[in-house]
Each structure stands twice: as structure tokens, then as C-alpha cells.
């Protein structure tokens, strides 16, 4: 009897949609499992050397970078979010949007721009020398080492914390803040006693995104000469050609990430964060006189350093090198970037639509499925890259008899030298971006139309094409653009997984910067920034639509 019941329940739920979703989830999880499997394997000599002499340094640097950046982005992000959400001051409406813009400058572009700009031959020191006859200590302004990296990460990643916290404060915290004000508490008490503790989940949400970026970074740390676990993965892979040790390093990095999550859970354990059910926008208080000017100055300085100054500097460099860089090879570069991004985005969206449709049942199984397919977002690019590489090498070995029967040689590396590897890497890393956009679309539409269609005799698949798809079209388009932009900007995966002679805008920019051809890097940098600004505008538009 029991077996029949299970069979019946399976028959209701399991169909082609589930099968595709499960296959997708397995492909996404496989590289991560491959990484963990490396821990139980016998280590080689290289690894013993790395563990004895280098690992401590890698871990220390990584932890230092993460902790310092987390603290500073939290301070910057939360204070700015509070100012914008709770007060009115000159140009506040502009800053509300403008303070998101630093996110449009990828950190490695910011790093090489600031390093050059503040260096001995940069615009700041030469101006001081030539026009003011002031010779300053070159070390004073140098952007290098851990300090420099923290400076770059803080200024260009704080918008994650700012955006999430601001959204929370503007809509969810109103009744508590108004109550605190009515109980006679001043602005400082309201901030420290109410705003900070209440918005802790939002702050942590933003800081976690910052930490993912820092852990997965390769561009900034390698340009500024810092040895972290991520850069070490690259070095062991490309310098020593030792994939096994690179995998072990990736496993170590995963241990840090898991540890971080457990620690955060432990901290949160006994507290509960209730959010008021009625969301009402917070009415801002007008700041006048010195207070208004101070708020304006604070936002203005962050906007200048975090966006406007490096942006103008890049434009100036682009003008100098335009004739040299803007040629047919540049168009090939553009074509390759768009080509790989479009293919990956299409695959991501198709799988995301299938999985999100399955997850509308809200069962515990579908919850696990959604967590599995979106897990790539919390895993640094280098880890995904090494996992994908290991998986593809194994796949090539497995397919070797097939290759030889096709006359391709005895044991060639076909898949692991192709563009497929990079596309799979992108799909794992950015599945969450596409999935979240589509999930929001499905949630907005609800299940009533699909149910009505099924009651009118259409099966699940026909219902999807005739009813659901036209209704989630908007979310599909925004999901496409957001994912496409993320892929265009991505660096570590592209550097590690691209086939020989294949360049994207990001890898070319990085190479120029790494070869000290800083001015030449500016045009591709500006293009990446322009693409990113489009995504910021779309996020803004989606936010407005959700509000409406």
C-alpha cells in the first residue's frame, strides 16, 4: 500500500521539468564536490611545500583582507544608507542613485587606475611637483599591499551594503524609528539603539556579498602584489601546472567560507529579527545649516573618490590612446565577449526558468533544489574554475575511447581546451542572478493563472508556454540583462577557463594593466563601466516597479 502511495505522489510531481532541474543541479554541484574530494586524496610534494612555507601567509592575508574590508564597508555603507533614508539634504536625490555607481567600476580597474593616478608618474604627484613645486614622499600615496587593497575594496564594494540596508531602512523600519523618536530619543540613540540592531540582517546580507567578492578576487590582489588563497590557486595552476594542489587550496578556501557561515549562524542563534508587517516609507527629516552641509560633503566625497575621479581619469587616458586601441582587433574582442556572454546567459535563463517553475510548488524538495542551483554565487570564481577544470579533464579521459574512434588521437583534451568549459563556469557562477530575477517574476504572477489553464485542459508544459511565459516576459528580459552584464565584467573565471587566444573585455583590460599599458586599458574599462551602469539603471527600474 505504502509503495503505491509513493508511486502515486511521484507520478504527480516528477516530470520532465523535474528531471531537467535535477540534471542542472548535479552539473552545478559536481565541480564543488570534486574540490572537496581532493581533501581525502594523497597530497603531492608541491602541496607539502605550500603547506609548510606558504599556506599560513595566504590564509593570514585572505582573512585580514576579508575582516578589514567587511568592517569598513559596513561602516561606510550603513552610515550612507542611514543618511539617505532618514534625512533630506542638498542633492540627496542624486546621491541616492549616485552612491550605487562605484559598483559599476570593477575593482581591478579601480585598482590599476588609483595605483597609477597616485603613483610617482600619476596626475596627483606630477601636478604637485610641476605646478606647486612640492616634492612629496612617493610612499605616502602609494596604493599597494593590503592597505591599498582594502582601500579599493571598501570604496568600490560598499554599495552592496548601502543598497540593501537603505532599502530595508526606507521601507521596513518606519514604525520602530518613529516610535523611538516619539519616545524622545535623539538621532544618535535612534541610530545606535534601533537602526543598527534592527538592520543587522540587511547589513550582514550586504557584507556577505562583499566578502564573496573579496574571497573570489584575483584582479586587485595580483595587481597589488598580495598573496591570497585565490592568487595562490592561479599560481599553482599556471606557475607550477599542479592542478591537484590548486584544488587543495580551493578546498581550504571553501573551509573558510563554510566556517564564516557557521560563525555568523552562531552569532545570530538566540536573536530574532522581527520586521514590522506594514511597510510604510520613512519620512525623512530635513537637515539644515551645518548638518546639511556635512551630510552633503560626506556623500560628495565618497561619490568623488568612489566614482567620478577614477571615471574622469579613465576618460582622459582613453582620449590619449583612442586612435591606437580602437581598431578591428578591438571589435573582435567585443564580439567574443558578447558571443560568450549571450550563449551563457541563454543557457542560464533556460535552466533558471525550468527550475524556478518547479520551485513554485514550495515543497521542501524544491527548496533544496533552488539552493543547489544558486549555490555558485557564494563560491569564489577561482574555486569554480578549478572544479570545472578537474571535471572536464575527467570527462575528456572518460570520452577518450570515443575520441580515438573518431580519429582525434589517443587521449586528446577536446572539451577541456574548448569554450564549453568557460560557458559551464559562467553558468555555475551566475545561475543565481538569472534564477532570482525569474523567481521574482513567478512570485508576482502567482499560481492562479497556471491553475486556471490546467483546469481548462492544458498540461504543465503547454501551460508554461501559453500562460506563464508571456506573463513573466518582463522578468525574463531583466534577468537576461543582469546576467549578461555580470558575465561581461567577470574576470577570474575568464582568465582561468578561456581557451588559448580567446580574450574578453575583462581579460584584455587586465592584461593591459598587468603589462603596465595602463592608458591602453582605459577604453575597454570604460566599456565595462558603461555596461555596468546599464545594470544599475535596470536594478533601479525594477525597484521602482516593485514599489508601484
Amino acid at each position, binding site marked *: 500500500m505504502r509503495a503505491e502511495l509513493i508511486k502515486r*505522489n511521484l*507520478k504527480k510531481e516528477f516530470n520532465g521539468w523535474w528531471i531537467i532541474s535535477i540534471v542542472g543541479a548535479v552539473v552545478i554541484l559536481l565541480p564543488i564536490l570534486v574540490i572537496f574530494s581532493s581533501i581525502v586524496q594523497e597530497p603531492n610534494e608541491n602541496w607539502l611545500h605550500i603547506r609548510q612555507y606558504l599556506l599560513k601567509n595566504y590564509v593570514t592575508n585572505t582573512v585580514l583582507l576579508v575582516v578589514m574590508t567587511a568592517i569598513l564597508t559596513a561602516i561606510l555603507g550603513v552610515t550612507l544608507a542611514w543618511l539617505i533614508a532618514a534625512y533630506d539634504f542638498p542633492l540627496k536625490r542624486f546621491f541616492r542613485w549616485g552612491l550605487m555607481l562605484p559598483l559599476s567600476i570593477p575593482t581591478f580597474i579601480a585598482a590599476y587606475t588609483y595605483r597609477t593616478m597616485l603613483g610617482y608618474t600619476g596626475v596627483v604627484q606630477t601636478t604637485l611637483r610641476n605646478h606647486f613645486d612640492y616634492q612629496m614622499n612617493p610612499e605616502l600615496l602609494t596604493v599597494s599591499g593590503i592597505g591599498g587593497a582594502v582601500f579599493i575594496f571598501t570604496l568600490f564594494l560598499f554599495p552592496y551594503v548601502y543598497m540593501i540596508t537603505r532599502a530595508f531602512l526606507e521601507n521596513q523600519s518606519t514604525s520602530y524609528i518613529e516610535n523611538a523618536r516619539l519616545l524622545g530619543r535623539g538621532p544618535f540613540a535612534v541610530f545606535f539603539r534601533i537602526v543598527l540592531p534592527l538592520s543587522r540582517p540587511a547589513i550582514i546580507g550586504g557584507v556577505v556579498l562583499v566578502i564573496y567578492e573579496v574571497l573570489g578576487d584575483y584582479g586587485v590582489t595580483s595587481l597589488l602584489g598580495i598573496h591570497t588563497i585565490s592568487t595562490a590557486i592561479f599560481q599553482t595552476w599556471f606557475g607550477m601546472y599542479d592542478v591537484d594542489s590548486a584544488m587543495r587550496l580551493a578546498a581550504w578556501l571553501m573551509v573558510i567560507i563554510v566556517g564564516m557561515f557557521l560563525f555568523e549562524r552562531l552569532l545570530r542563534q538566540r536573536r530574532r529579527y522581527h520586521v514590522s508587517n506594514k511597510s510604510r516609507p520613512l519620512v525623512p527629516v530635513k537637515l539644515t545649516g551645518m548638518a546639511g552641509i556635512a551630510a552633503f560633503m560626506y556623500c560628495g566625497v565618497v561619490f568623488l573618490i568612489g566614482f567620478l575621479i577614477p571615471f574622469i581619469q579613465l576618460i582622459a587616458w582613453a582620449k590619449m590612446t583612442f586612435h591606437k586601441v580602437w581598431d578591428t582587433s578591438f571589435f573582435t574582442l567585443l564580439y567574443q565577449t558578447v558571443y560568450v556572454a549571450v550563449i551563457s546567459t541563454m543557457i542560464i535563463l533556460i535552466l533558471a526558468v525550468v527550475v524556478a517553475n518547479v520551485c513554485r510548488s514550495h515543497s521542501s524538495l524544491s527548496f533544496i533544489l533552488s539552493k543547489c542551483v544558486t549555490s555558485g554565487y557564494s563560491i569564489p570564481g577561482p574555486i569554480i574554475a578549478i572544479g570545472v577544470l578537474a571535471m572536464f579533464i575527467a570527462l575528456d579521459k572518460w570520452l577518450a575511447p570515443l575520441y580515438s574512434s573518431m580519429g582525434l588521437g589517443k587521449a586528446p583534451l577536446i572539451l577541456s581546451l574548448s569554450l564549453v568549459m568557460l560557458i559551464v563556469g559562467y553558468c555555475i557562477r551566475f545561475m543565481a542572478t538569472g534564477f532570482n530575477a525569474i523567481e521574482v517574476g513567478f512570485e508576482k504572477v502567482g499560481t*492562479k493563472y497556471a491553475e486556471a489553464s490546467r*483546469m*481548462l*485542459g492544458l498540461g504543465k508544459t503547454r501551460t508554461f508556454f501559453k500562460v506563464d511565459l508571456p506573463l513573466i516576459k518582463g522578468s525574463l528580459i531583466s534577468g537576461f540583462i543582469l546576467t549578461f552584464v555580470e558575465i561581461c565584467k567577470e574576470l577570474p573565471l575568464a582568465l582561468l577557463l578561456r581557451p588559448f587566444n580567446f580574450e574578453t573585455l575583462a581579460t584584455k583590460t587586465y592584461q593591459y594593466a598587468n603589462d603596465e599599458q595602463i592608458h591602453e586599458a582605459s577604453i575597454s574599462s570604460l566599456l565595462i563601466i558603461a555596461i555596468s551602469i546599464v545594470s544599475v539603471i535596470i536594478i533601479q527600474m525594477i525597484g521602482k516597479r516593485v514599489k508601484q
Partner: protein
Amino acid sequence: MSIVEIQGLTFSFSRKEDPVIYDFSFSMEKGEIVGILGPSGSGKSTLLRLISGLEMPNKGTIHIAGTTVVSEGVFIQPENRGVGMVFQDYALFPHMTVKDNILFGLSHLPRKQRKSRVDEMLELVQMETFGERYPHELSGGQQQRIALARALAPKPNVLLMDEPFSNLDANLKESIREELGGILNKANMTCIMVTHDRNDVEAICGRSIVLGKMSVVK
């Protein structure tokens, strides 16, 4: 022979929760209109969702027009049960015109018959001139009539209606109620209607069931 027969139906939303519907049995004949009454949370809408196949019971069997649609080892998908449903908020597809909404459930018919069936349905609900409108261009009462036409078009064995008057204002409700009773009788439709208003039942239904107390009231 009963057109709908339910035996020992039990359903709970999760294993931890008490069942919303417990050991429920019921049957109805062709052409009957049965009202289901009961307070909020008594499982009225859930019962409709179980009959239609949108939810799966923990126990029990349901037969529709002589076919077992759910039992211990059987589950027939909602689209294959021959059941029509008018949703509480009508669920008219917003991206389709009135005609396309009604056409939606007629894909199994030859093209010519589809068109004549749509015209027939629009005539039945007296909305012949509204075929090209979109749902948002209709009033609440008009939307309800189109939802009814759409559900009746594929000629279901049984029609399920979930609080069909809850979105209408009091003035409109009375006239629409009479109209609906007339349409259902004209179509000789077997119908189960969930409502929380006893007046709805008295106006339209031949008999009623009160859920929550597990008793049947004639």
C-alpha cells in the same frame, strides 16, 4: 449513478498539522447544484482543490463520472479530469482578450467548432459584444460572467466555483446571483459552489454541506 463520489477523504497541509479535511464522504447526482458552507479555514476551498487535482489527499478516493481520479494508487492530472473551475478572483488571463480566454480550453475541438462554441458561450452569458476586450477593460460582474463562460466552454462533467460572489459589491451580488442560477440551470450543469453566505446557497443550490462540523445539512 453519482457524478461525483468522495469516500474517506483526508488532507493536511503538512505532516505536523492536524488535517483540514478528515474522513470526508459525499456524493452528488448529475445536474445538482451543491453549496459548501463553513467558516474560514474549514477546508472549503481545499475540498475544491482536491476534487480538481490541484492538491493531493493523504487518504481517500474521488470518482468523477465513473472514473477514479484519485485513490491510493491513482492520480489523474487536473487537465485530464474533465472539471471546470471558476476561481475566487476569476484568474482571467490578462494578456488575452475575452474571446481568447474562452478559446483557451477548446484546443481539442476542430477549428470551426471552436468559434461557434465561443459565440455560444458569449451568448449564454449575454456578452456577445465584449469578445475583443481585455479582462482589465471589464467590470467585476462582467469578469465573473466571462470566467463562467470560460469554465463552461469545454463542457466539464462538473463545475467548481470558489466564492464566486466575494469580489462583487452587495448591490450587484443579488442580480448576478439570479443570473448565475439561470445560466447553470440552462446549461444543466452539475456544480459545487463554495461560499460563506447562506443566502447564496438558498438562492442557487439544491442542497448544502457545512464543513468544519462534519455534518451534512439538507
